């Protein structure tokens, strides 16, 4: 604990009190006071290794040793106010859920084609929900043509 306090004072000394408070806000430490989840994560982060940061700024931590196995990987979301699990992009998903030991950065090195679509978080209930329309649905832009015959075209004249 003492080291934590010491490091706080050191960074105040380096950046000045104004900058320090600004950073506290940005890093969500202020938010911690109201959000127990975030506080828990922040406390967890102490002593953990930062494995990587994805393109959205989500930070992925891992701590082996004194943590319970299965709880040794976690994410700190970039957004401190509204965060949810769908913000984790595909390449990090596998690492985070112990599907693979390859981190998202390693997977991105392979330039996989199957993540062709840009990752988009789930906006359900916020007005931008993704609704699947079947192939025959009018709202599906690629709506299938159910006409199973070709008509005679009266254009050509014998």
């Amino acid at each position, binding site marked *: 604990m003492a080291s934590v306090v010491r490091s706080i004072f050191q960074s105040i000394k380096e950046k000045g009190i104004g900058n320090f408070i600004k950073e506290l806000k940005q890093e969500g430490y202020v938010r911690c006071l109201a959000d127990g989840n975030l506080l828990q994560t922040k406390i967890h982060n102490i002593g953990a290794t930062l494995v990587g940061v994805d393109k959205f700024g989500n930070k992925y931590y891992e701590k082996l040793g004194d943590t319970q196995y299965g709880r040794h990987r976690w994410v700190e979301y970039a957004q401190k106010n509204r965060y949810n699990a769908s913000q984790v992009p595909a390449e990090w998903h596998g690492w985070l859920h112990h599907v693979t030991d390859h981190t998202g950065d390693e997977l991105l090195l392979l330039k996989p084609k199957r993540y062709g679509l840009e990752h988009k978080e789930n906006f359900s209930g916020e007005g931008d929900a993704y609704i699947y329309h079947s192939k025959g649905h009018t709202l599906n832009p690629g709506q299938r043509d*159910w006409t199973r015959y070709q008509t005679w075209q009266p*254009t050509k004249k*014998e």
Partner: protein
Amino acid sequence: MGLGLLASRALRSSRIIRNSTRTIVSTPELKNADAAAAAAAADAPSDLPKRNPVGGARVHIPNPDDVIEVFVDGYPVKIPKGMTVLQACEIAGVDIPRFCYHSRLSIAGNCRMCLVEVEKSPKPVASCAMPALPGMKIKTDTPIAKKAREGVMEFLLMNHPLDCPICDQGGECDLQDQSMAFGSDRGRFTEMKRSVVDKNLGPLVKTVMTRCIQCTRCVRFASEVAGVEDLGMLGRGSGEEIGTYVEKLMTSELSGNVIDICPVGALTSKPFAFKARNWELKGTESIDVTDAVGSNIRIDSRGPEVMRVVPRLNEDINEEWISDKTRFFYDGLKRQRLNDPMIRGADGRFQAVSWRDALAIVAEVMHQIKPEEIVGVAGKLSDAESMMALKDLLNKMGSNNIFCEGNGMRPNADLRSGYIMNTSISGLEKADAFLLVGTQPRVEAAMVNARIRKTVKATNAKVGYVGPAADFNYDHEHLGTDPQTLVEIAKGSHPFSSALKNAKNPVIIVGAGVFDRDDKDAVFAAVDTIAKNNNVVRPDWNGLNVLLLNAAQAAALDLGLVPESDKCIDSAKFVYLMGADDVNLDKLPDDAFVVYQGHHGDRGVYRANVILPASAFTEKEGIYENTEGCAQITLPAVPTVGDARDDWKIVRALSEVAGVGLPYDSLGAIRSRIKTVAPNLLEVDERQPATFSTSLRPEVSQKVSATPFTPAVENFYMTDAITRASKIMAQCSALLKK
């Protein structure tokens, strides 16, 4: 036997098929051989439950002295001498699993799947090749028989790929069905499976030869029924394969049938490949209209699409085969369709309009024209109902100029025996001499040709042919190319006349192409003389036949579609084409108003002023009479396209708009109207023989001309609007044209 085949057997005796179960399942008490014997001994035969023959198999006992009795699982059956054990079992109601045996082909006995136990025989016997002997005690459900079949099945599956999920035969595969009963749940075969190079048999038959189990059904079919010796069994042992050795397309008009007889997925339909699964399809029992034979077909459809056409069993017409045209024309039903009523505008372009406008214009024009200048032409594919309606409409308008294309301008509709096949198609099998006049049955009516070939093969019947050089798949004598030859035969000066004279049941077949000849009456008179001189028409035998070309012809003549004047087209001002595409409109005056009612944008459309879209035969119920005078009904398999309507309904609606309303509003009502004209058309599925013979024909003074006969069908694969629209048929005629 495939499920499809079984289903097709349900033709007339659908009751029988529903009762008979496919018994591969063994009854538990019969599993124990001793118990079975005891049960058989204890039960008097009369106590045994009545069993129904498999698939409605019928026993025909030609000679009552030659009856023997055998016991199948203790159940006594009486069968004629010479039947095989397998046939005896079928009559006893036991379906023996089989691959190589096919009732219409010779017996090969090489699949060994039909092994049964016969008492006092040291080994299980192959029932398909074993003649039944008097008092034979056959056991089909014993552990020995089951074990033997399981062994055979294991060997068959040894080299069979496990690709049922990607195999088109899946769901209607004999091997799949029978492995459910006799297959093991695991394999003991650890070596590599063999693989065989696929063969290219043309645009219709897809081959995956690795799936082949060497039953040789296709080889036997090709050489025995189709008459093209292309396929053979090559190699030996495990390297044995079916093939043509040198690459050769299968140039037979019956090649599609190998798809049906193949018990596995080695030969499948190329156009149908990966299109649908057979359990998704809805079967509609219908009639083929692409030629005058009226083959019985099942139209398999999925939603609004016809997916494939397969034959139905009809012993009297097509047995269980159909021609390639019948089987593969169906993609033409989806192309070049007319779906909106259209009117040709002042600029010569068609514009889609509503039915109300189209009919109003037609009615208006029709009233402005003098009645004798109105001409109606029924097309090749018209059903009896619509031809009746059209004739009634034109008669009400005051015109009597209506005819059906293909019948010529001076058809003789007075004597029914003068335009139908009096011998009947199945009756051809009794014949022992054929005289073909101006007809090439192989392209005009492939199923009739198959019958003639069957007869020629069985009885060595002599075939004489008068007509242009043609392709036959049986031995024949080409007697000449013009009608003069007929006169020679009639006089008895031709060498072939002695063959006719010596024949017990001579048959003369005149092609319908003769109808279009100017000297048609003289030709028919010459044929009549030949018939008279050679005793062709007798009380017990009528061998004088006309082989028609189109499905509509016979019904049109029955309904009296005969034009008042044979020059009516030349002076016509209003022509109503009801699906008529092959009628010659060159002489039609330029100011004539042409209405085309039909389902395909084919030749007839280009001259039309108004197009009325109609439904194709797969989309409506209609009566068609085939060339032997058997009326049959098509049933709607798929919905019509766009705004199209049934032919007779369009004519009925037009009559209403024109103010000459026809007195029928339903199919039933129009059929009662037909009943007053041609009652035989309502005797569906029953052949109605002609009552009077042609001897009543008036004297003809006309002389035969020296013009040679011309082929009536130029391209077997493209004869009507639907087949001309078909891509598969176009491919066939490019690759296989005969």
